């Protein structure tokens, strides 16, 4: 079964989220002892986005509900880091928008059907 458009879009957007996190790390973080927290959390955020990207596949590693929940988890980490002033505000806003888009795409019936199909 070819990938449907929703899954393709989800994969691309989630991958972009991971790339933006790494790029944001390079641009906004300082290599100091105090900066370790934001570096580590941006790396975590990028890993979470890449995991989401990998889940948009036929017979994926997660059930559709788990995929949506993981999207919310990613959004929570992004929102928490932004509101706690651990990561840059604008970077946080961009990542939050990306996470919400991924959640929305993962919740569509077509994507759920594709991800749970064999």
């Amino acid at each position: 079964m070819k990938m449907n458009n929703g899954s393709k879009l989800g994969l691309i957007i989630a991958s972009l989220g991971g790339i933006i996190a790494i790029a944001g790390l390079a641009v906004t973080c300082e290599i100091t002892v105090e900066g370790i927290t934001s570096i580590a959390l941006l790396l975590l955020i990028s890993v979470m986005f890449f995991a989401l990207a990998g889940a948009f596949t036929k017979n994926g590693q997660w059930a559709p509900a788990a995929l949506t929940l993981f999207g919310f988890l990613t959004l929570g980490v992004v929102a928490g880091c932004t509101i706690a002033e651990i990561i840059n505000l604008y970077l946080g806003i961009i990542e939050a928008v990306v996470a919400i888009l991924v959640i929305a795409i993962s919740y569509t019936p077509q994507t759920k059907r594709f991800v749970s199909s064999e």
Partner: protein
Amino acid sequence: MNTDVNNHSTAFGWIGIIAVVTYCTIIAICSVIADGSWTWCESVVSRFGINDNQTVRDIYNYGSIIFGLLLATYGIGRIECKKVGYVVGGILFIFAGACIAIMGLITCADFTRDIHRFFAMLTAIFIVLAMVAIALQYYRDGNILAIGFTLVIGIMAFACFTQFEFAKYETYNVLMGYIWIVFDSILMIKAGLNGGTKQ
């Protein structure tokens, strides 16, 4: 028998919303009247209870009692939904409401500070546990969006708790907790309007 809702889900949902709006209005009025003696994110909310201005003290203390009673009523509404998570959450909201009402009676003046803090911490713990219990029921019901929203609120609250001073994280966490209560109230209203078919 559908145990997602009771006949008065809509009414109890509105009580939850009214409770939160009441509390926010009380804090807003107190902060305006208190003028320079209280600063957002630098002063603890309980300081309104011992403010030099008698009007501020009265509004805050009596307002806390009213808010506590409304929150407890909302908890009763949650109990009547009969599913385990909602019952546990409702009971915890009743206790939280009772603690808030007691905080309105016992201020954080020097000689009662420890007692006030005791009830303040209990309030926070009860509200967090109530959110967890109700979120677990959302999970059992397969309501993914609801549990996702709870997850986001929970992580944000935790991040604020670890990063900020007490007064600042108290402000943020109280706000996020009450946003969640409004969200849960909307779910109750929606279920009541749907005639109890799905929550």
